[in-house]
């Protein structure tokens, strides 16, 4: 049952990330990392909110947390894009992308976690 909920959440999260990547590529040119950055920050905020609430039922954590947020966000594409930008001689951009994702992503997670705990 839990596996099914994880699958359902993942089947929404992965296409949404692909949509964000394609929108960013269409607007800002191929290779844009803005789409991946946006979903990583947004997914961290949603998961932070969910866990900050506390006492959330296990089925909701599996569906929205492990399934949707876990799959909406990605670490492998982040790593690959940082290496790609560095390899293109754009080390400054690679560092800004990596640092920006970390600060905004962990910041969004912390903010949402703290805000939900106040509810």
């Amino acid at each position: 049952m839990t596996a099914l909920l994880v699958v359902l959440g993942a089947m929404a999260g992965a296409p949404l990330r692909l949509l964000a990547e394609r929108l960013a590529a269409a607007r800002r040119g191929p290779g844009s990392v803005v789409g991946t950055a946006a979903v990583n920050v947004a997914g961290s905020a949603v998961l932070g909110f969910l866990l900050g609430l506390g006492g959330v039922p296990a089925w909701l954590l599996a569906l929205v947390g492990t399934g949707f947020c876990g799959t909406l966000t990605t670490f492998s594409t982040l790593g690959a894009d940082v290496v790609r930008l560095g390899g293109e001689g754009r080390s400054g951009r690679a560092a800004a992308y990596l640092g920006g994702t970390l600060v905004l992503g962990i910041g969004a997670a912390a903010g949402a976690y703290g805000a939900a705990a106040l509810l």
Partner: protein
Amino acid sequence: MLPDDRAGGQGDSQVFGYLAAALGGALGALGRWGTAEALPRETDGWPWATLLVNVTGCLVLGLLIGLVFARSPGSAWLRPFLGTGVLGGFTTFSAFALETVQLTDAGRPGPAAAYVVVSVVGGVAASALGIVAGRTRAPTG
């Protein structure tokens, strides 16, 4: 025949990519969930499962980029299925971010900072290693 971005049918192949990503994402997420089940952690404990999926996922995506994607740049489904889907779903940024927040919240800022450094350095190094190894081993011509 699978649809191909370069051969027209742009709309169909776009939809095909989303379906491929959904299917691959489901498989990747199941792998991540299974890893977390096998390596459970306390809220203030070291997140071995997430670290493991993130670093190995970076390595495998790097290998795929050199070995597979570079050889089939026009495929409408290969990268959405394996890259966006399977590896994107297997690895996660949100759990990494929340585990960092929870470690800090539990009064363990040292391990939290170490977790960020190990994940980022390990992930980027694994990506670089995978990309270089994949490119080197990819048959040319």
